[in-house]
C-alpha cells in the first residue's frame, strides 16, 4: 500500500464508522448521526478524486503564474451532494420529533408495534 493513498483510506474509514453507528446503536438520534457520517465520507472521497499534484484552485482571479489547475467537476458534484445531505437530515430529524411525540420514547426496538 502506498503511503500517499492516505486520503482515500480516511474517506473509507469515515464510511465504516458511519455504518457501524447505524447498525449497532439504539437511539434514533444516533442513527441520524451515522447516516450523516456516511454522507461526509462520500463527499470527502469525491473531492480527493480530482486532485492534481502541485495544483492550484481553478480560479483565474489573481492566479499564480503558469501552474496547472485542479479538476473542477468533482467539486461541483460535491456541492450538489452536500445540499442533498442537508435535505435528507432535515426530514429525518422531523420524523424523529414526530415519533417521540407519538410513542413517548426514542428507542428503536420499542417503536415497532402499531399504536392507535
Amino acid at each position, binding site marked *: 500500500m502506498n503511503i500517499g*493513498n492516505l486520503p482515500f483510506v480516511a474517506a*473509507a474509514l469515515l*464510511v465504516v464508522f458511519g*455504518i457501524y453507528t447505524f447498525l449497532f446503536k439504539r437511539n434514533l438520534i444516533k442513527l441520524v448521526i451515522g447516516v450523516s457520517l456516511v454522507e461526509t465520507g462520500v463527499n470527502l472521497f469525491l473531492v480527493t478524486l480530482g486532485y492534481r499534484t502541485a495544483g492550484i484552485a481553478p480560479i483565474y482571479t489573481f492566479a499564480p503564474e503558469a501552474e496547472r489547475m485542479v479538476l473542477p467537476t468533482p467539486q*461541483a458534484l460535491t*456541492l450538489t451532494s452536500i*445540499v*442533498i445531505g442537508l435535505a435528507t437530515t432535515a426530514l429525518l430529524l422531523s420524523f424523529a420529533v414526530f415519533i417521540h411525540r407519538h410513542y413517548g420514547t426514542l428507542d428503536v426496538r420499542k417503536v415497532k408495534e402499531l399504536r392507535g
Partner: protein
Amino acid sequence: MRKAVILVAFLFVGAFLLLAATSMRPFGEPSFADMDDYFIANTQVEVAANNAVTAVVFDYRGFDTLGEATVLFAAVVGVLALFRKLREDEV
C-alpha cells in the same frame, strides 16, 4: 445469534471497503481528465467568468443544479407540511 450474523456482515463490508481504498490508483494523478481540461481552457472564452467551478455548476452542468434545487424545495415543503396546524377533523 442475530447479533453475530450482523457483526460478521459488518466486518466483511468494512474489510472490503478498506481493501478497496488501499489498492486505488496513486493519489494526485487523475485517470481521465480530457473533459476537465476543456473546461479549464475554455471558461473565459465561452462563459466569460473567472470561476471555473461556478461555470461548471451553472452553465456546463446546469441540469444537475436544477435537480438539486428541486430536491431542496421538496425537502423544505415536506418539513413545513409535517409541522402544520391541524384542524379538528384532520388526522
